[in-house]
């Protein structure tokens, strides 16, 4: 009986006009397009300058900011009002205002008349932009003091008298803070979750819509056999997608998994069980594809936003953190990143396996119980 049901599912999959192509396109898109699109690195901040000083010193400061590579000089304005208008029109993200007495004040050490205004409509972009600008100003001052110290050791006294704390940073696991490397395991997580939750749900609902499920229900096919035969093709597709993604990440970006590949597949298997269970569960409660699509979409958004893929879970409020414990994607994403980036093994991340297994058992048993052959 199993043989014939599986044969049917695979034949239907490969005959579908869209599904096989989608299975091929998905890993390619995920690995070649999305890593660039979801990058959180802030670049190309549009900077407007109000230079009241128009001196050599002020142009050196501006030069320092532009040469950092993070800013794009939009315009050097004559008045603060003109700069604000640029910001209002969304042409400038940040404004640096240099006072008319800048050169003189810096030379005498009387002050540092520089103001920063940042557009924080996008909070992250704004606050990171402000940090970059401050860093640029610090660099400018350091260089200037170093130059001044060389010329005149007298003015350098105050600086050298202060204790100097040198903070040096060392980054582990992703030494160049490469956001693409950080996102690649997470994108695999999202892709596999989509495939394994969407496709089986729509599959069952389409059998409901054509009435073929009724025909299966009057046969001696057991609930378990029918559900498992539905799941197996999606296991196969997910492993194909996972393998293709890893190969593309290696061939195109030169990224390799630091941990044992076996663990990636193990955690993927656990996630697939959870997601296939969820997909079937949803399809059991939906009578048409539209309903099923909407419910899955609803879950997919919650899963992604509360998984720690885009924002760290540790910085969520306590109640939100509590919700993430019920989110299978939280465990799967954490495990995939740990294995891929850090080389962890299940010994270190056993809790991810436990979380997935617990949710998976609940989902699958519920799915099987709710797929009632004998409805009321």
């Amino acid at each position, binding site marked *: *009986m199993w*043989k*014939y*049901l599986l*044969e*049917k599912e695979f*034949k*239907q999959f490969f*005959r*579908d006009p869209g599904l096989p192509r989608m299975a091929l396109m998905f890993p390619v898109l995920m690995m070649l397009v999305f890593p660039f699109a979801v990058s959180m690195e802030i670049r190309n901040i549009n900077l407007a300058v109000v230079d009241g000083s128009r001196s050599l010193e002020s142009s050196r400061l501006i030069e320092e900011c532009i040469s950092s590579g993070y800013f794009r000089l939009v315009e050097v304005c004559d008045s603060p009002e003109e700069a604000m208008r640029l910001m209002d029109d969304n042409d400038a993200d940040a404004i640096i205002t240099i006072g008319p007495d800048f050169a003189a004040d810096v030379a005498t050490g009387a002050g540092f008349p520089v103001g920063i205004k940042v557009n924080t409509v996008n909070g992250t972009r704004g606050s990171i932009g402000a940090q970059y600008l401050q860093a640029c100003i610090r660099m400018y001052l350091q260089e200037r003091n170093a130059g001044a110290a060389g010329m005149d050791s007298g003015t350098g006294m105050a600086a050298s008298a202060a204790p100097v704390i040198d903070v040096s940073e060392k980054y582990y696991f992703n030494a160049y803070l490469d956001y693409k490397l950080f996102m690649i395991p997470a994108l695999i997580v999202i892709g596999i979750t989509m495939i394994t939750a969407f496709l089986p749900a729509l599959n069952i609902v389409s059998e409901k819509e*054509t*009435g*073929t499920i*009724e*025909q*299966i*229900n*009057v*046969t*001696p*096919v057991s609930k378990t056999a029918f559900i498992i035969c539905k799941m197996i093709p999606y296991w196969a597709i997910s492993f194909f997608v996972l393998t293709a993604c890893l190969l593309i990440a290696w061939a195109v970006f030169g990224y390799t998994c630091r941990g044992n590949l076996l663990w990636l597949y193990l955690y993927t298997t656990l996630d697939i069980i959870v997601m296939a269970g969820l997909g079937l569960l949803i399809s059991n409660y939906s009578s048409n594809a539209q309903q099923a699509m909407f419910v899955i979409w609803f879950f997919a958004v919650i899963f992604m936003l509360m998984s720690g893929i885009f924002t760290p879970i540790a910085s969520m409020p306590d109640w939100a953190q509590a919700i993430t414990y019920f989110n299978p994607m939280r465990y799967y994403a954490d495990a995939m990143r740990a294995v891929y980036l850090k080389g962890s093994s299940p010994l270190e991340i056993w809790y991810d396996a436990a979380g997935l297994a617990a949710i998976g058992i609940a989902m699958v048993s519920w799915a099987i119980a709710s797929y009632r*052959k*004998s*409805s*009321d």
Partner: protein
Amino acid sequence: MEENVIHIRNLTKKFGDFTAVDHISFDVRRGEIFGFLGANGAGKTTAMRILCGLSRPTEGEGTVAGYDICSEQEKIKRNIGYMSQKFSLYPDLTVRENIRLFGGIYGLKDRQIREKTDAVLDVLGMQSERDQFAGALPLGWKQKLAFSIAMVHDPGIIFLDEPTGGVDPETRRRFWEMIYDAAERRVTVFVTTHYMDEAEYCDRVSVMVDGRIAALDSPDRLKSEFHAGNMDEVFGIIAGRAGREE
């Protein structure tokens, strides 16, 4: 006296306050063509789903093919065939693959499936269409194929839920020839229909009104009882008493 293969007593199905099937009782003999008539909403689909093991009765008892309708649903399923008004084959599988799938589900071996496939294709005259997708066949052919597939495991009873909906009279007549062939092979045929000319072909018919069986007899006796010229008039008289809205 022929044995009864379907034996139903006081069968009742309630959905909340609504009584879809209200204490019906009847017997169907082996090899009989039993017509199950009723307006939409009269409860005939609900009753049929219980007989096929798809639904459990709220009250009452009965057996189908010798198995209890409450506790032995899986055994019933193995011994009946079912074809519904919705064309229920897989449109993206070929004719041959559909036969193979359902043969396999009912536990036939590969060799048996091959023999069965050839036999079915010969009878239907569909050898040249065997590798066509079932979804691409004309409706009349689909129905005949669906009927043959419902019979693939040689069940003792076959349930047909409005099997000839939407086809021309000629195609319906040929479909009924298949039903007669099955009945000659001692297969019990339990059929619901909208077409009153088809009711004339049945050995006995029951007419359901408001969840109850309002009449049950052979078409000839029903016609004389209600002084009607044909089954259409009989049905009009009986169904006209319905109190329940559709």
